[in-house]
């Protein structure tokens, strides 16, 4: 893309020119060393520091949600509910869902990678509203503290979907507190989304036109729009549940004159678009990784950019596909099904364009690219199995079975989480100025791919046989497949723990990275590693489109570790 600050010599293909040694000669402060002391962090309005606070907070929540996942899989190793009592099992899968969805899947890519990179990628000093950015972090933190308090005070057993009237009238657990926690966390999303939308509109560097934006920026922009339009709806819904629970105002419980299916409409009006809040930024990461490691412009760039917007728009009109058997009208089901089929198309377009980007590229299978390739496989399976569930005749049987569980883990974990790890490895040298250990990185990626499929593929088979989700006890004939799934989950857990060990290790022992260890295009690779507080010494002037790799672009020999 951009060749930027005109005083700089072109350097995209010569990472060694920016080796750490050169930097040591002229010590320069970066955003990590600009100032010290806890106050310089907790009151920081630097988007990069806020991104790191998000990163460490979210890493903690991954561990919390992971422990719950582990307990669920351990329990399901045997058909009898012998490890936990049903009450506790229900609370544990609920907490697994709540923690992972609201505190990892939704904020993971935008709040960490987006916060760090979005301003740098468009050549800005910071987001449009740095103080609102800091506020969004603290709102997020309050949401987490309330959720953990609810867990400590006895937990919640409604499932992350909080279906009424179970949640509003019958559940005998900390529903009100958890609902308040989710309500508050929603505002954190809204603030981040607002910041991203305004930043992309108003803060682009001179010459950074819309069609020169990296696709990661497009994806986060589309995500910001969805967050702004949908999150308020879930906030209202939660307030109504709380009013019914606390004051018996009839909204959802027929005993008070309410309509239980109304809740599902309102919940999914947010939560289906929320699925795209989770996956779109991840798709943006994948576009960046595949371009950088194929040394090519993303194939069909405008098509990929607009497909993000298409997904964002169509995604608002498919919520009823969660409700085919819930009692909505037969014809409403038909309409929701056909729109759901339409949303499959832009997703398919993206996958074909990513694969085509590799064609005649200079493909380097470094760790981030391994994650990107794993994403292509897992997201393809996740997307295709979405068609199974969107077709009504089949969904009657599949709805609320393990097929659904497998499907959304393929999209969310196989998709979003894989992209998160890929992106984190890719930009790790930018964020901290150090390289992660490459060999073990690839081992972790390969182990993730194997462990993931072993965990979730058997669940497709279990689902078609009819194993309902959220089951503590299950018929004995399904034990073998459940056991395979539990063993796979163990491998998967190990593969996710590895980077949590070697990435921090690399902060001290990793090779010094230099400005552009990958020889990649993009404004972020023209900033220092780690960047200075205001990212660039001079506002960059953009003269090229994104991914302006020259004909015959190649990876440098140093990059080829194998």
């Amino acid at each position, binding site marked *: 893309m951009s060749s930027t600050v005109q005083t700089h010599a072109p350097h995209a293909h010569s990472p060694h020119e920016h080796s750490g040694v050169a930097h040591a000669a002229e010590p320069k402060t970066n955003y990590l060393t600009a100032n010290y002391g806890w106050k310089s962090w907790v009151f920081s309005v630097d988007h990069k520091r806020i991104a790191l606070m998000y990163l460490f907070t979210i890493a903690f929540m991954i561990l919390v949600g992971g422990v719950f996942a582990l307990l669920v899989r351990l329990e399901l190793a045997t058909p009898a509910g012998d490890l936990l009592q049903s009450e506790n099992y229900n609370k544990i899968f609920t907490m697994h869902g709540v923690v992972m969805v609201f505190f990892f899947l939704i904020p993971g890519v935008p709040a960490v990678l987006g916060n760090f990179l979005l301003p740098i990628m468009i050549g800005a000093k910071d987001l449009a509203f740095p103080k609102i950015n800091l506020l969004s972090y603290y709102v997020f933190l309050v949401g987490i503290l309330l959720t953990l308090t609810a867990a400590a005070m006895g937990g919640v057993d409604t499932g992350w979907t909080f279906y009424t009237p179970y949640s509003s009238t019958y559940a005998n657990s900390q529903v009100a507190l958890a609902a308040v926690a989710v309500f508050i966390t929603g505002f954190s999303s809204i603030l981040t989304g607002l910041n991203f939308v305004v930043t992309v509109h108003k803060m682009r560097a001179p010459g950074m036109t819309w069609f020169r934006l990296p696709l990661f920026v497009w994806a986060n922009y589309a995500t910001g729009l969805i967050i702004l339009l949908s999150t308020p709806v879930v906030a209202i819904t939660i307030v109504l549940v709380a009013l019914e629970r606390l004051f018996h105002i009839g909204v959802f419980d027929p005993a008070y004159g309410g309509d*239980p299916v109304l809740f599902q409409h309102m919940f999914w009006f947010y939560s289906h678009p929320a699925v795209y809040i989770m996956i779109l930024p991840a798709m943006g990461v994948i576009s960046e990784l595949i371009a950088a490691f194929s040394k090519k412009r993303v194939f069909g760039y405008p098509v990929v950019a607009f497909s993000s917007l298409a997904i964002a728009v169509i995604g608002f009109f498919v919520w009823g596909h969660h409700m085919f058997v819930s009692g909505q009208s037969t014809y409403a089901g038909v309409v929701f099904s056909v729109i759901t089929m339409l949303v499959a198309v832009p997703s*398919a377009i993206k996958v074909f364009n990513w694969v085509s980007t590799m064609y005649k590229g200079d493909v380097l299978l470094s760790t981030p690219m391994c994650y990107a390739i794993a994403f292509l496989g897992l997201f393809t399976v996740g997307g295709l199995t979405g068609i199974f569930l969107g077709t009504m005749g089949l969904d*009657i049987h599949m709805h609320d079975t393990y097929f659904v569980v497998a499907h959304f883990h393929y999209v969310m974990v196989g998709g979003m989480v894989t992209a998160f790890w890929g992106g984190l490895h890719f930009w790790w040298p930018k964020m901290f100025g150090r390289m992660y250990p490459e060999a073990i990185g690839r081992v972790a990626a390969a182990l993730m791919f194997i462990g993931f499929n072993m965990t979730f593929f058997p669940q497709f088979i279990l689902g078609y*046989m009819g194993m309902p989700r959220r*089951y503590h006890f299950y018929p004995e004939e399904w034990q073998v497949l459940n056991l395979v799934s539990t063993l796979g989950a163990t491998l998967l857990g190990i593969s996710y723990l590895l980077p949590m060990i070697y990435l921090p290790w690399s902060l001290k022992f990793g090779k010094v990275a230099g400005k552009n260890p990958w020889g990649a295009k993009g404004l972020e690779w023209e900033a220092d590693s780690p960047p200075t507080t205001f990212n660039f010494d001079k506002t960059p002037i953009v003269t090229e489109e994104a991914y302006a790799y*020259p004909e015959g672009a190649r990876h440098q020999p140093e990059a080829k570790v194998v």
Partner: protein
Amino acid sequence: MWKGIPLFPDSASTYSDAVDYFYLALVGISIFFTLLIAALVVLFAIRFRAREGSAGATQIHGSHVLELFWTAVPLVIVMALFVWSTKIWFTITRPPAHAEQYYVTGKQWMWKIQHPTGQREINTLHVPVNVPIQLRMISEDVIHSFFIPAFRVKRDVLPGRYSTMWFEATKAGTYHLFCAEYCGTKHSQMIGSVIVMEQEDYQRWLSGAAAGETPQVQGEKLFAAMRCDTCHTGQPGARGPKLQGLWGQKVDLSDGSTVVFNEDYVRESILIPTAKTVAGFQQLMPTYAGQLGEDQILSLIAYLKSLSDPAQGGAKP
């Protein structure tokens, strides 16, 4: 090793094979596209790998033809799948006329079932083979979902509103019955069996089971016991509308609109009589909410239905 480890569910209803064919077609399509993507990724990753002496990347920005191609192909495929699945959807959601009516009440954490002939069961449903059966279902508390995997059918069971599902079993046997909508602590134990029997076995089972009274006889007794007959006398000039011959008919309401006299309207009128008053009558009826359980309301419905069924001595509509 895989002997005795099931990988595919029993198929035991008139539409379960249709669902399976559709499923297998989708599995085929999915395998094709997954292998296609995987093969291309592996091929490109090897063929174009970064190595000493490689020519480097050739910059190709895109292709309108290809973009159109891979927009059109998925679009055509998903639309074809949509049409196919919607046909199955209407088969499963539209019950045949004259399906036998069974009543199901869900509550935390059991299924209560009543046969048209009066037998009651809990968590077990005996049905005859080759007879279309419709379940009329309601919940006493939270949302449940009645799921019979071998028949490929499920339907949420809601509080405050009837939902229905139908099936016709094709194979005798014992099949799983699950609650599929999370309903609280013992959700995973809200399970049971559907026992499909040959016709004669079913008749033998019916005569062996404590038959009790049929739902309409129970309803008739309730109708008298709750003093419904003091107003709904069936005579001209009565304080309540005549109920004979009314089932399935349109009823004019005092606000000028009309409503079909069916299960939902009857249930609503018993519990919230003020909601819809029949034209020409004063709103005098008291509510029976809290006095009648869902089972009893279902019995009253069965009785009112019989009043319009010539075969059961009711008036012609």
